[in-house]
């Protein structure tokens, strides 16, 4: 019987993808840049308020311990210290921090009774300056009673008693376990000719933006309100949760976004830093800033990323047809569980990769260990799924003696099969995977390189080619969260984004974003779409950001959703405004509203371009001539020109009540092919890029230049994830690399000097103009291709790559092991 994969709703697209757009599709210079380039952008640490005090924290030196005693008396006496708080005192002032885990795993702004990882705050000091606050931290004495430490994720499955981090959740560190069969897994395995099996390891890394997380809070005793400036996102989605922690009514909190100096997920939703600053601001009666230093950011920022062990099996036919895919995943979440297993929802959105695999068996085991907890990082767990499926397809090709490219081609979902429901129920809206592959092979000059590589190998060089075809799910709806919570009712039904538009009496357009800047180009994107909608020059448009007081329901950037969502919101708000504009213009020009259109800053009569009224004159009329309008009672003709619009998710469905599928929850499916040529030095374990080419399909592009920026930057993130980055903890739970001296993010020397980027545009049939998300794909495409390239280069040794990161040491070890094995044989 065919699997029930759910249904596909009708498209609500209003703006069809089309030729001849004037502003969309152009590489316009960014409107954000002039202030940033001249040092005038305001980031979290640039908030300077009169009389502002500063917080520093005492970080736990133990990975797992009871706090027996804290002596803060010396710190309190230090001149310039305003207040010192321990976990016990903080627990009186604040409630648990926000969490999405269900049942909730509670975390506090300062650890209370127990520390669960090195770097967790055990006390905090507020002082006249950061210098004094840090001095005072050194004067605080903490006595710990050590508890058993859990570091290895597979060992964590066996923890009992004192080794359990949160005993209120049972005598185990296995905090969540879920098993699903999507489709006929057993039958598909039964009809397989061959099963590929692997254990794969994806390492703990993190977004690690150049700017750390921080907040400055003000308490106004008159209005009894907090104002918090922070480099956070999601403040117009779930910012109210912070009010709960601060024990004030929700309307007594206003969150104001600053620019973010990069996020990559690390600033998805800040709560620890805002709560820390706000707690002290009320206590000392002054503005208070808490900015993480680099150590806080590595050890205590709640933003480490997927740390997974995979046991996987791929069932295939002899001819390379991929049938079914089974995986058991152990994921090390660290000490808390803020987003539950949201990272696995992401992975299941595209678990079959670009291939028409018939069924999927999933077994997720989320474990807690004594580490900084997981958050989001560019891909949010789906980048790991890309690595896993692509490694398995490579393995299948090798074991079946098929070409690595041909096996992909054979199994691709074909372009006439979209929209396509995969076994988990998620939809792939559109795509043309063969075309992306072909363009990539051309861009790299695959044939040319094949020949060159052969010659180089003959000359004794270790050169390899890697090619991976991967997915970039974009625009989440969060509807799938329910699947994981076995006791919960069906939950979220949308994750919207909003826009406010106003045309002033002189025809200038103001757009208010309800989501922040976090290193992307929100002002530029909004400007281009508004310019397109109203056919006005971008210089007439001004974009600003709302705070949460004035904010409309908006999820914010993340999951490559912003461009699609804000465009939907702009189209919605513009439609309301244009209706009014045409009504007024029809009256002013004595024309029929249906015959009107906007062109070059004017309302014109279609086919009679001489007949026009400028937007400027029309706006003036709309503001000040209310009583001259035809029907003074018309409720659509109130004075002024403004509109807001909340754009709900373009296409989403609920999970199946019987849990046969997860519904459509991450459907706007980008695709990319990454290819590269690398040369490895087996003596030193070093490798270098000889070439790099990638082609992305992010649907219709708004700004090819900024999209390409995401691709390039993402690739270098991906190189870090694949080759150098790992937050490492020793067996005592002591982190051994927390600074940029030893947590190695790629510098220019490790990055390709000449990366070739190409584009294919397969429009989405569901989003306005056919746009898809494109913010994460670079990082999501590189690791499997790089693993393949290095494996190919080292093929004379017969090495199989099953783990990342491929640091110099790891490559050296793999070569040595292979040599020892050969010698022994």
């Amino acid at each position, binding site marked *: 019987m065919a699997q029930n994969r759910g249904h596909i709703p009708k498209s609500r697209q209003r703006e069809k993808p089309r030729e001849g757009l004037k502003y969309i599709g152009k590489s316009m210079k960014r409107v954000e840049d002039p202030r940033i380039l001249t040092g005038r952008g305001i980031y979290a640490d640039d908030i300077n308020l009169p009389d502002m005090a500063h917080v520093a924290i005492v970080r736990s030196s133990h990975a797992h311990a009871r706090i027996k005693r804290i002596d803060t008396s010396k710190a309190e006496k230090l001149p310039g210290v305003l207040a010192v708080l321990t976990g016990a005192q903080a627990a009186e002032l604040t409630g648990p921090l926000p969490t999405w885990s269900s049942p909730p795993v509670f975390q506090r702004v300062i650890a209370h009774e127990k520390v669960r990882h090195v770097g967790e705050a055990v006390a905090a000091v507020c002082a006249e300056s950061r210098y004094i606050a840090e001095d005072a931290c050194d004067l605080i004495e903490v006595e710990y009673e050590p508890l058993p430490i859990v570091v290895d994720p597979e060992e964590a499955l066996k923890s009992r008693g004192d080794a359990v981090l949160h005993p209120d959740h049972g005598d185990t560190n296995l905090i969540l376990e879920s098993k699903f069969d999507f489709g006929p897994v057993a039958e598909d395995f039964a009809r397989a000719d061959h099963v590929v099996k692997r254990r794969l390891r994806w390492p703990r890394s993190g977004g690690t933006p150049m700017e750390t997380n921080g907040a400055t809070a003000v308490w106004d005793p008159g209005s009894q309100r907090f104002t918090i400036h922070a480099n956070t996102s999601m403040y117009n989605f779930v910012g109210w949760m912070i009010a709960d922690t601060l024990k004030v009514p929700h309307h007594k909190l206003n969150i104001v976004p600053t620019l973010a100096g990069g996020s990559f997920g690390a600033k998805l939703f800040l709560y620890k830093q805002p709560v820390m600053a706000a707690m002290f601001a009320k206590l000392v009666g002054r503005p208070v800033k808490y900015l993480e230093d680099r150590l806080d950011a590595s050890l205590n920022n709640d933003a480490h990323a997927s740390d997974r062990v995979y046991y996987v099996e791929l069932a295939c036919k002899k001819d390379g047809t991929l049938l079914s895919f089974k995986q058991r995943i152990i994921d090390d979440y660290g000490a808390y569980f803020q987003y539950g297993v949201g990272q696995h929802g992401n992975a299941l959105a595209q678990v079959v990769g670009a291939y028409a695999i018939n069924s999927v068996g999933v077994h997720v085991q989320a474990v807690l260990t004594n580490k900084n907890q997981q958050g989001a990082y560019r891909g949010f767990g789906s980048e790991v799924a890309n690595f896993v499926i692509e490694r398995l397809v490579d393995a299948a090709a090798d074991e079946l003696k098929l070409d690595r490219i041909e096996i992909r081609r054979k199994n691709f979902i074909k372009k006439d099969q979209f929209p396509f429901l995969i076994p988990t129920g998620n939809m792939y809206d559109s795509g043309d995977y063969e075309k992306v592959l072909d363009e990539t092979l051309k861009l790299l000059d695959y044939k040319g390189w094949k020949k060159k590589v052969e010659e180089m190998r003959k000359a004794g060089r270790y050169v390899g080619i890697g090619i991976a075809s991967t997915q970039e799910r974009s625009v989440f709806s969060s509807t799938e969260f329910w699947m994981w919570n076995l006791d919960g009712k069906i939950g979220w039904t949308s994750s919207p984004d909003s826009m406010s538009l106003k045309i002033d009496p002189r025809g200038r357009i103001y757009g208010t974003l309800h989501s922040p800047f976090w*290193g992307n180009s929100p002002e530029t994107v909004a400007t281009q779409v508004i310019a397109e909608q109203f056919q006005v020059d971008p210089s007439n448009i001004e974009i600003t950001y709302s705070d949460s007081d004035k904010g409309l329901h908006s999820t914010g950037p993340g999951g490559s959703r912003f461009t699609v969502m804000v465009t939907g919101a702009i189209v919605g708000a513009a439609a309301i405004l244009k209706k009014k504009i045409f009504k007024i213009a029809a009256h002013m020009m004595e024309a029929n509203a249906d015959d009107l259109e906007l062109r070059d800053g004017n309302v014109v009569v279609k086919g009679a371009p001489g007949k026009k009224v400028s937007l400027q004159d029309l706006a003036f009329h709309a503001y000040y001539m209310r009583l001259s309008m035809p029907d003074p009672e018309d409720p659509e003709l109130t004075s002024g020109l403004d509109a807001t619009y909340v754009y709900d998710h373009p296409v989403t469905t609920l999970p199946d009540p019987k849990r046969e599928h997860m519904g459509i929850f991450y459907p706007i499916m980008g695709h990319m092919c990454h290819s590269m040529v690398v040369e490895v030095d087996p003596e030193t374990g070093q490798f270098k890029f000889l070439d790099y080419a990638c082609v992305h399909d992010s649907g219709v592009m708004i700004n090819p230049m900024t999209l390409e920026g995401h691709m390039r*930057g993402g690739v270098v993130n991906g190189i870090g994830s694949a080759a150098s980055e790992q937050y490492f903890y020793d067996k005592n739970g002591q982190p051994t690399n927390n600074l940029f001296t030893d947590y190695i993010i790629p510098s220019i020397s490790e990055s390709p000097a000449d990366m070739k980027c190409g584009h294919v545009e397969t429009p989405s049939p569901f989003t306005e103009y056919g746009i898809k998300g494109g913010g994460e794909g670079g990082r999501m495409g590189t690791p499997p291709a790089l693993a393949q390239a290095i494996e190919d280069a080292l093929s004379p040794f017969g090495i199989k790559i099953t783990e990342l990161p491929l640091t110099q040491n790891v490559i050296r070890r793999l070569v040595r092991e292979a040599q020892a094995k050969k010698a022994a044989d």
Partner: protein
Amino acid sequence: MSNEKITITVNGKRYDKEVEPRRLLSDFIRDDLRLTGTHVGCEHGVCGSCTVLMNGKSVRSCLTFAVMADGAEIMTIEGLGTAENMHPLQKGFWEKHGLQCGFCTPGMLMTAVELLKEKPRPSVDEIREALSGNLCRCTGYQTIVESIQRGAEIMQGGK
């Protein structure tokens, strides 16, 4: 700790201030002078975000004490150009998309200013060499190299 009197010229303006001997130049510039364009990414001398020019030479302001800059001429990003009148390098970064979040950008620009003083027409390799101590998490670096080339071209009178 007694404070030290220092005189520093920043972006052509002279400041007479008292500072603690341990006060970092980065904190002095950012908090005492309120010139927040200089960014602090790591506080340990690796990322280069905090790069400023001291007597024409690039220094990491997070590794320099303010007292060490007594009598010196400092140039920060705010001294380079304004939104109405950008420096050619700023124009280059704008045109070639040399920034995304912009956090590393002041350090990149100040490093590039120093480079172009020595080598008005640097090669790609020379630019890569000069930027090898500046981290950027957003751009992948290639557009930064192109931005500097473009800035050099504008400086030489190119359009």
